[in-house]
């Protein structure tokens, strides 16, 4: 016990800062209202280039340290040039990276040292939906399956609890499991 108690758990997560932010945003709920943004520019065919940089939060405009850009396209079996990931794969990337970040934060808070965390995500889709072959088939995924392989200084039960808590507090998990109102306009 004393050996685990004295070893410093470091998953590279600044839990004190997160807990401090939680307290600060409890006291000033307005500052907790964020806006996330992305812009996407069509290149050619199904190929597009998206960038993210600015966002709003803590009551003012914020910015990533640099602009990040993402190429999206469709694979050659769709008669595309395959110059980037498929948009639905970005959704899987979003889900996996959100859950993974959550696991690191929760593990740090629970004093669990992680050695490796690997998520494998698979989602089924029936193309009869998007191709308009069968109107009863939805366009999106039938279901998403995430499998985690985690090596950590913790029991299986504690690891399962980490993964469960991470889902509970995940923005992307919420976005994909619950409906969201979406408005799309033309300027």
């Amino acid at each position: 016990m004393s050996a685990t108690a004295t070893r410093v758990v470091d998953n590279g997560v600044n839990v004190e800062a997160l807990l401090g932010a939680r307290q600060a945003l409890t006291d000033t709920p307005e500052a907790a209202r964020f806006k996330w943004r992305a812009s996407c520019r069509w290149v050619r065919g199904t190929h597009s280039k998206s960038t993210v940089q600015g966002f709003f939060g803590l009551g003012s405009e914020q910015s990533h340290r640099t602009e990040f850009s993402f190429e999206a396209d469709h694979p050659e079996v769709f008669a595309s040039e395959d110059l980037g990931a498929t948009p639905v794969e970005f959704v899987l990337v979003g889900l996996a990276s959100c859950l993974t970040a959550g696991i690191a934060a929760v593990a740090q808070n629970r004093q669990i040292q992680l050695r490796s965390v690997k998520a494998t995500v698979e989602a089924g889709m029936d193309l009869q939906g998007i191709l308009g072959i069968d109107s009863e088939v939805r366009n999106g995924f039938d279901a998403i399956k995430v499998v985690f392989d985690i090596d950590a200084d913790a029991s299986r039960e504690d690891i399962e609890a980490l993964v469960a808590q991470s889902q509970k507090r995940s923005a992307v998990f919420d976005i994909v499991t619950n409906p969201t109102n979406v408005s799309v306009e033309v300027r």
Partner: protein
Amino acid sequence: MTLAGATDVVVIGAGHAGLAMSRYLSAAAIDHVVLERGEIANSWRRERWDSLRLLTPNWQSRLPGHAYSGPAPDSFMTMSEVIGFIDDYAKVVGAPVRTFTTVTSVSEAEGGYQVTTERRVWRARSVILASGASSMPDVPPLSSALPATTRSLTPREYRNPKQLDDRAVLVVGASASGVQLADEILRSGRRVMLAVGEHIRMPRTYRGRDIQWWLDAAGVLDERYDAVDDIVRARRVPSPQLIGTPERATLDLNSLTSRGVELVGRLAGIVDGKAQFSGSLRNHCAMADLKLRRLLDRIDEWIERSGMSREIAAPERFAPTHTPQTPRLLVDFEADRIGTVLWATGFRPDYRWLKVPVFDRKGRLKHDGGIVDAPGLYALGLNFMRRRKSSFIHGAEDDVRELGDHLVAYLRRAPYSTSPPTRTFPSAGLEARRYVDSAIAKSHFH
């Protein structure tokens, strides 16, 4: 309006908690009155469904100066038995109860509070809010989008399945109320869907004893509000999936699904006559299973430490909650013939008559273990108010003693000014309260 009455303390609500406080005040020779909108134990008489029994076994129904003494300590009181129990307590206590006296407002007044009822106006130096934690069903705003052909019902209005038409019922929420109502309606021959969000799974008995016995013995129910990590969250935890039956049966999701209840995720929206359910059912069930395992581990450790392990049954672990492979995400109220939606989505106290600025931005009462954020104002019986057991019948004793001590000290220190009125400065009142808080803390909690 008749002339004002003056007293030291007005207790609002003649349920078990208000009566226990009355007993304390009488013993301390403090002038008080208990105002009750209906009869003693009114909510138990008028706002509960017919088959409901307490979730706690009879032996646990104990109040200061009163306890269950019947022949079935391990059984669970029916509503008429609860009413009888509390009626008896009112007689034992000899509480000065004014029945059929509805409080219409409580406001700050010189020297304390003005309590207005339909009959007369009271002036009191202190007011105890003992009107109950479960007065108002907490129905989510999305209920307004329900199609007109589907009936909306809360557990407060529900009495028995005869009220329902023969179409299917969607029960929203899998707390004690939700699983009990799903069970009863299923038994009446109707099809039942249960929308499951965050919930607490518990077996009725564990290692041969009632789960409440272990929670009591292992000190879980005595955990204090100022010793838990996140009290705001702890106060929101739904009631555990328990039912009180003479057979001491466990009522969990597995026992419901094995008999045909369809599980769906948390109700996330109602659009165009369709209910949308969250895809998070599996995780909510996994979390409840994990928490149950943790609780049983804790009980096992306690048994081990206490040296009981040889006298009692071996540890048990329960099968994980079975969730459907692909729970339905969309349900059409008309096509699926859903006649009723029953909102087992929790309750909150009704303080619409409390005209004192003691609410946070979410409309919740601001209090520190029942000591409300206004001098001389106290609450009783709220969820995890001072201890995990605060909202239970047996939770009243410790809370009444501590808050009663606090109140007595407050009355001694605060300038007496019910009549004739002398203005006290709010800051002086706060100062006095802080002093009393720390004095009480030193004498009782350490």
